[in-house]
């Protein structure tokens, strides 16, 4: 359903179950919900489905998925996507769920950081360890300069046109953006890195070293930014070199790229019972203290909890049974085996 407001175009995505988190547990829940003819829509802050499996360890093997003696985490996600394809799940990717409200019909409205709204009678939180957020260097004055010259993610490279830019880090993002911005975009690019070797791809590392050699960028190795100074915006960085002491570099922007780390984030403020960064649930159906909101997978906790993908699959399976009874209190649910009935997906 879409309708016009005077100034903005608002889209309301409607479904049966809003799943917050598109990791393996959230994905498999689409399958189990689909068998009960319940539709799902997933929200994830990452641009691709798969959660930790895709973001942290896509090339690592997993050995405890039943019937798979060994499967790469990335392949597990691909298999799950294929398995749920008949049930046509919707996705809101690259956006994180920030708030939850109720409408007059007792439906939940989940809104993302970009304002996308989702409506459903059931919400399943499958948020894993939380929203992947950039690692921020431990510099006390840093928050004063966020979006005033300090950016943790490069969204629009045009922001850096004809500017002096300092990038920190040694991973692929740091290397790729150094190469990109040095190619006629920024006025000057300085890369500050803790050591001489890089975590990023060897080809990119070589390109960066070549750029430094030819004077197109400045590369300060064995060094770390330890201070930011400026009047209302970034003007100078204080850099500590391992052997040569402190130096100061004037710049318009500092982009620290130290990877992503998961944080529970706004879900912590949804009124749910939280214990040690996890949502407390009833193991009867993985319901939370708020009727209609469930929590499955790594994000929940209960006596005997094990953070295993295997257990998350089980939790999602039982949870949709309870969700069905909540949506259709007068209907009886009979367990049907896929081997007998096959899998009948949705038409559209």
């Amino acid at each position, binding site marked *: 359903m879409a309708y016009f407001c005077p100034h903005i175009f608002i889209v309301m995505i409607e479904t049966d179950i809003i799943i917050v988190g598109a990791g393996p547990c959230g994905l498999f829940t689409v399958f189990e919900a689909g068998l009960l003819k319940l539709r799902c829509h997933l929200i994830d802050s990452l641009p691709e489905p798969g959660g*930790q499996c895709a973001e*942290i*360890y896509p090339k*690592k093997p997993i050995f405890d998925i039943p019937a798979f003696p060994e499967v790469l985490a990335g392949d597990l996600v691909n298999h799950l996507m294929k398995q749920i394809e008949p049930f046509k799940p919707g996705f809101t990717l690259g956006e994180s769920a920030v708030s939850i409200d109720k409408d007059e019909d007792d439906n939940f409205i989940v809104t993302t950081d970009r304002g996308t709204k989702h409506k459903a009678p059931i919400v399943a939180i499958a948020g894993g*360890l939380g929203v992947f957020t950039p*690692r*921020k*260097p*431990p510099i006390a004055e840093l928050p004063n300069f966020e979006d005033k010259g300090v950016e943790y993610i490069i969204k629009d490279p045009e922001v850096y046109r004809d500017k002096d830019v300092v990038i920190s*880090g*040694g*991973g692929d993002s740091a290397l790729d953006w150094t190469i990109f911005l040095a190619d006629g975009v920024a006025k000057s690019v300085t890369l500050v890195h*803790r*050591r001489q*070797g890089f*975590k990023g791809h060897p080809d990119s590392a070589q390109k960066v070293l070549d750029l430094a050699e030819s004077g197109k960028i400045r590369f300060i190795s064995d060094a770390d930014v330890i201070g930011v100074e400026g009047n209302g915006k970034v003007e100078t960085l204080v850099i500590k070199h391992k052997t040569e002491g402190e130096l100061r570099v004037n710049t318009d922007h500092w982009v620290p790229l*130290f*990877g992503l*780390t*998961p944080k529970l984030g706004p879900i912590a403020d949804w009124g749910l019972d939280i214990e040690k960064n996890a949502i407390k649930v009833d193991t009867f159906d993985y319901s939370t203290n708020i009727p209609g909101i469930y929590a499955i997978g790594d994000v929940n906790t209960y006596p005997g909890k094990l*953070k295993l993908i295997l257990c998350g699959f089980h939790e999602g399976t039982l949870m949709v049974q309870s969700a069905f009874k909540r949506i259709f209190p007068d209907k009886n649910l009979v367990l049907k085996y896929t081997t007998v009935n096959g899998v009948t997906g949705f038409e559209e």
Partner: protein
Amino acid sequence: MSFVNITVIDREGAEHKLEGPTDMNMNMMELCKAAELPVEGTCGGMAMCASCHCYVESENSLPEMSGDEEDMLDEAFFVEDNSRLGCQLHLNDNLEGLVVRLAPESA
């Protein structure tokens, strides 16, 4: 069951004397978690999060750092020359008398 004696100094400076079993394929991150010390172990021990970052303050002979561990410490904060990831320190007889200090949590 055989043990090594390990001291973990938490972020408040308190010392915890732990017995680390050497025959259960455990690492320092897991030992800290089992003792309910504030170590997250977010990635489960794959050297991919640095939430078990610690400083080794004793002279034990330790395994060489793998490329993965070195890369991860590259992106961590408060890194010193004696920094290691607890998850990469597997409990064995070489760790008798090990003293580690938990690194500060990063934001």
